């Protein structure tokens, strides 16, 4: 690294080092400028879409890689001691900056906004929280989210557990599991379309034939066709079915792998002792996979707490189906009230604090690396 300094003396060596540092400053700056220029080009360009898309991909991915290579090169040009001290920050820095900007700092900024008025200027004290905890609409969203969390989670986990246990005893396990698991790859909007078609309702009249699966089934059973999605409070349950359809696969896969971890001798021993399958399930399987079950339940509860897309696409929150995340969206983007929206976001954060505390506790328990 210090090849030239020996031959040209101390001053030359210093100049060389200084020169390196200067060049090193220019390289990242120029890299950044080029990236910025391409960004402006992309934003204003009228080029065919496919060109823009390709340039965007190459620019975005290449740009980030280039930034790392260049700044690493820059740090390596510094005198050895500085290089050692600074290099970790080249690696960790970008991630820390982005995470702070997008998640850590917004917690404080949103907290501040939640005490301000609708455009974030005047302080209004607790007004937004009074709205968040007493407004009729908010109380409705609390009730619905509770419904999603309790009914949605218990059915997802219950079905997932049932399928995992049953499939474990068949030869076609992978086929069954693949079918149940597939909805995980589908967007909530796509799933919304699929189920909207199941629930679709045309009404009564001469020659009208229901094309929705549920109404056709109800008619075939001798019932009356119904507009399922505008029947409070039952419409919430019809929406929750969609979530169960999407999340059971997740629960099943995680539980299934935990079940596979149960030592066979344990179950064999229980059976030899005369335990029935049901007894073995409750006395051995369940206690053994308790940790996994808690993780799965937590994940799905958090999921149903933040649920947005399904309600947004299916009902827009009308007819008594509103949920917290949708009311947040309405407050911020339809009514333009940042104060209330921020207060609702803080409510969501408060709801996950127990999980955060638990994560930290678990993490501290086995932080061997530090």
């Amino acid at each position, binding site marked *: 690294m210090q090849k030239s300094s020996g031959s040209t003396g101390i001053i030359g060596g210093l100049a060389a080092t200084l020169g390196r540092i200067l060049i090193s400053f220019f390289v990242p700056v120029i890299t950044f400028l080029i990236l910025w220029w391409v960004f402006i080009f992309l934003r204003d360009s009228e080029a065919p879409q496919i060109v823009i898309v390709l340039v965007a991909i190459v620019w975005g991915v290449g740009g980030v890689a280039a930034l790392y290579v260049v700044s690493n090169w820059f740090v390596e040009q510094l005198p050895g001691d500085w290089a050692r001290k600074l290099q970790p920050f080249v690696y*960790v820095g970008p991630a820390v900056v982005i995470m702070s900007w997008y998640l850590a700092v917004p917690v404080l900024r949103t907290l501040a906004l939640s005490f301000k008025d609708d455009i974030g200027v005047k302080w209004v004290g607790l007004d937004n929280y009074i709205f968040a905890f007493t407004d009729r609409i908010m109380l409705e969203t609390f009730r619905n989210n509770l419904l999603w969390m309790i009914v949605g989670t218990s059915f997802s986990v219950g079905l997932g557990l049932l399928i995992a246990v049953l499939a474990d005893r068949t030869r076609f396990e992978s086929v069954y599991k693949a079918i149940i698991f*597939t909805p995980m790859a589908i967007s909530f909007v796509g799933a919304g379309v699929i189920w909207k078609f199941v629930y679709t309702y045309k009404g009564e009249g001469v020659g009208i034939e229901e094309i929705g699966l549920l109404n056709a089934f109800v008619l075939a059973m001798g019932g009356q066709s119904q507009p399922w999605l505008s029947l409070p409070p039952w419409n919430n349950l019809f929406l929750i079915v969609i979530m169960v359809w999407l999340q059971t696969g997740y629960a099943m896969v995680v539980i299934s792998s935990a079940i596979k971890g149960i030592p066979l001798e344990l179950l064999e021993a229980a059976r030899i002792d005369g335990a029935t399958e049901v007894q073995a399930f409750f006395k051995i399987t369940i206690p053994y996979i308790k940790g996994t079950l808690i993780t799965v339940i937590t994940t799905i509860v958090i999921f149903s707490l933040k649920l947005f897309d399904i309600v947004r696409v299916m009902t827009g929150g009308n007819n008594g189906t509103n949920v917290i995340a949708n009311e947040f969206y309405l407050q911020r983007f339809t009514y333009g009230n940042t104060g209330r929206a921020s207060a609702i976001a803080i409510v969501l954060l408060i709801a996950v604090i127990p999980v955060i505390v638990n994560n930290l506790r678990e993490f501290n328990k086995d932080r061997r690396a*530090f």
Partner: protein
Amino acid sequence: MNSGYKAQKVRSSLIINGVLILICFFWLLPTLGVFITSLRNSQDIFTSGWWTIFPHKEQMQTEEITLDASVNVDAPIEVQGITATFEELRLGVKTPDGRTLTWYGNKRTRKISITEEQWVGFFYKPLTINNYVDVLTGKEIRFTDASGNEIIRKGNSLGSAFLNSVAVAVPATIIPILIAAFAAFGFSWLNFPGRGTIFTIVVAILVVPLQISLVPILQDYTKLNLNGTFLGIWLAHTGFGLPLATYLLFNYMSTLPRDLLEAAYIDGASNFTIFTQLILPLSVPALASFAIFQFLWVWNDYLIALVFLGDKSRVVTYALASIVGEKGQDWHLLTAGAFVSMMLPLAVFFALQRFFVRGLLAGSVKG
């Protein structure tokens, strides 16, 4: 083992498989319906359920008769061996031999169609791929309003939305992985002040709901003019994906054997060389499982696209949701659109399911 035990085993295996087949049937049914519907003519979709493409009995018109002008339509009418009033005929009257007579139109048309239940097989109404063509090209809608202005409404072209989704999802998958990989390497193998504290914060923000960020970040984006840009949404997905990515990759990288890295250090390799030549290749399984995770998440995301990208560059979820909003009963567009939006994630999912499952099991709580 005695035979009674065996018989019991067979019986329980039958019950288990039966229950599972039943559950799987209900799981597949809604998707099957949408898939079949996406291939039917829009006319057929609206007049009959998708299950009618399977063989079934249906009322088929066999004959149409026009009543003579001399017949008094206000009195009971005698036709085809039965007598019925106009009102009864309007609703349809069954003849003893199983045919149905239905008057159609008003009294003046004097037309009665005779239908009979007949078996119809597969495809008696032909299938079509027109819905996919329609939804992918999304013709522009032009019309002139009352005051003579020409109005052009953007069609819901899923073709261009598909491209936009690719432009969003590919960098929004690779960028966070790259940044997280560097960071995870730093956290697990380099020493610097504040290492433990910073990583504890990463663990803490793992499950922070992203609604927390939307309001302030949107303010920043408005100031920086990032709203509706690809850069803006890549950064957003990067920001929201990074905690999980860093956490998962850290867990993986910190278990790599210490000796291996020490040997490389002794050989004089720089940190950068060790990272690119040793750590990255060894971490491919973890990188792959997070990549699939993030790709599916970004592709299927609606909220972030709705907030940060909006109408300027519609992604598939946005385009599909707006078809639901604007043309909620156009099932030929909706069903085909739903399938277009699912194709890529399903393909990725089935090709790389193994890695996806591994990612899930590594802990998947995301904010």
